[in-house]
């Protein structure tokens, strides 16, 4: 490898090392420390030249069912939201991929357009839409479709809605990339050989778009599990998601060691579905 190529590869790796691996090691270090009333609020790694580590924070996570329930809750919300984004995103991506070439750019732009506004503002906008005297209830009431305002916010529905809304582009883009590469003649060939449209889709289009599905599912599922803004703003008192608990531990309880161990545990537990997905992907390809 010559010097220039080394530089091209080394630079991003140096960046990742500095801003991903080092913070990760710091969090790992904090997770192994004791809580302390000091600044920062945990004991140092070395005390008078001796290494001081403890697994107590991890044991604490196991002892309190709240964390498990929050983790499973996050998985459940993320899984439902991922399934809904897939069901909505697939036809959308397929439609864009099969649209006339001159329309595709515009249609893709429309999918990406929401990113031009701050994520936080868009989630706040949903509050305005969904709240008891919000726009949706107001419209339904004035149309006479309902007699009393619907409860649309601070429940499971609004959390899933928020997740689906926020992550839909991350599903559509990889699916589009995959479907756009697909030769339309393959669908024609399936029809020509006697497959009805549904069977042609099931036997040809769907299997060939699996890599895009896997990429989209990972891109949506993983950040959705750790999401804390959406459950915080759109969720109710019963909405248990691990990202929100993590946030509370850090900033409300100021228990950094427990929060850090929670972050590490979440990372490890997220690596599991990701690893399974990758194995599945390799099996398909």
């Amino acid at each position, binding site marked *: 490898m010559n010097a220039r190529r080394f530089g091209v590869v080394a630079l991003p790796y140096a960046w990742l090392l500095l801003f991903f691996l080092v913070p990760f090691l710091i969090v790992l270090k904090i997770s192994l420390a004791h809580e302390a009333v000091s600044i920062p609020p945990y004991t140092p790694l070395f005390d008078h030249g001796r290494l001081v580590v403890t697994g107590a924070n991890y044991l604490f996570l196991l002892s309190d069912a709240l964390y498990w329930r929050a983790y499973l809750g996050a998985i459940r919300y993320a899984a439902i939201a991922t399934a809904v984004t897939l069901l909505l995103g697939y036809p959308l991506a397929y439609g864009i991929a099969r649209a006339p070439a001159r329309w595709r750019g515009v249609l893709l732009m429309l999918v990406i357009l929401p990113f031009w506004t701050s994520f936080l503002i868009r989630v706040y906008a949903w509050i305005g839409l969904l709240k008891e005297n919000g726009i949706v209830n107001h419209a339904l009431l004035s149309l006479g479709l309902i007699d009393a305002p619907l409860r649309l916010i601070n429940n499971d529905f609004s959390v899933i809605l928020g997740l689906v809304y926020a992550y839909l582009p991350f599903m559509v883009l990889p699916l589009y990339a995959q479907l756009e590469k697909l*030769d339309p003649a393959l669908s024609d*060939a399936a029809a020509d050989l006697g497959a009805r449209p549904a069977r042609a889709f099931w036997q040809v289009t769907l299997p*060939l778009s699996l890599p895009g599905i896997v990429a989209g599912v990972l891109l949506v599922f993983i950040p959705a599990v750790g999401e804390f803004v959406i459950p915080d703003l759109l969720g109710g008192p019963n909405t248990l998601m691990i990202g929100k608990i993590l946030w509370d531990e850090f900033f409300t309880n100021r228990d950094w060691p427990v929060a850090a161990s929670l972050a590490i545990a979440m990372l490890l537990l997220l690596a599991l579905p990701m690893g399974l997905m990758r194995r599945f992907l390799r099996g398909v390809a």
Partner: protein
Amino acid sequence: MVAGFETPDAGAIAIDGADMAGIPPYRRPVNIMFQSYALFPHMSVARNVGFGLRQERLTRDAIAARVDAMLDLVQMRGFASRRPGQLSGGERQRVALARALVKEPKLLLLDEPLTALDRKLREETRFELKRIHQRVGVTFLMVTHDQEEAMSMASRLAVMNDGRIEQIGTPEHVYENPANRFVAGFLGAINLFEGQVAGSDGGAVLVDTDAGRLVATHAPLGAGSKVAVAVRPEKLRLAPTPSSVNTLTGTMRGVAYRGEASTAEIELANGRLLRVTVANTGGALPAPGTSVFLSFAPDAARVLQS
């Protein structure tokens, strides 16, 4: 349109007497060998070939037997478990053919089947396709832009222009007796002399053209009607001395040597260029710049009206 992917603006399509209007592709007795082959990349060769039979819900054994027989026919038996990505262009083409034929369609559409192959493989495949055609007895409808391919493979040939059939017949008939200027110019090279009928003379017409008065065998035509006298390059004779009828004088411009024959370009006195094909049976062609005489027999020319 024949396969049902597009709807005709006008006219009707009938296969074996049955009108195909409104019948979707998956219910037509037609199969296509696609130009890009369109093999399913996620299936093995055997599963590709069996795809159409699985849609008919045949038993597993029946499918396997027909797939095997078809792979034998295209000489791809040893490749049954390969994926399309592991095959060469010629092998993929055989699989595509097998996949379309295994359904025993009434009509097999071949969409420019040979264009993706290199020249040598193309020639071999022509004979191969003819052999398979005779074995299975299915009607093949082949689309091609290669006139040589069309002429060497077809038992009947249709020249299409702008969605209309200009002429249909055996390759020999269409080549020797083109119905109009488009067919004459599309199928092989041709020299056209535009002019007006001057009169008829017992089984031949006399045509005044910018290259002089030409005689061509044809039923009598009304004097003054506008026609073109068409002569194929291989029917023009190159001679050092003038002959009795249809003699043209010109200058040799250039020669393209093509192995079994040479094509010479000859410029007439009025600046028009003619093409002459001379078989290479020995003897050198006149050098460029030399004056030459050209002639053709009246029955070697065709008179094109319209």
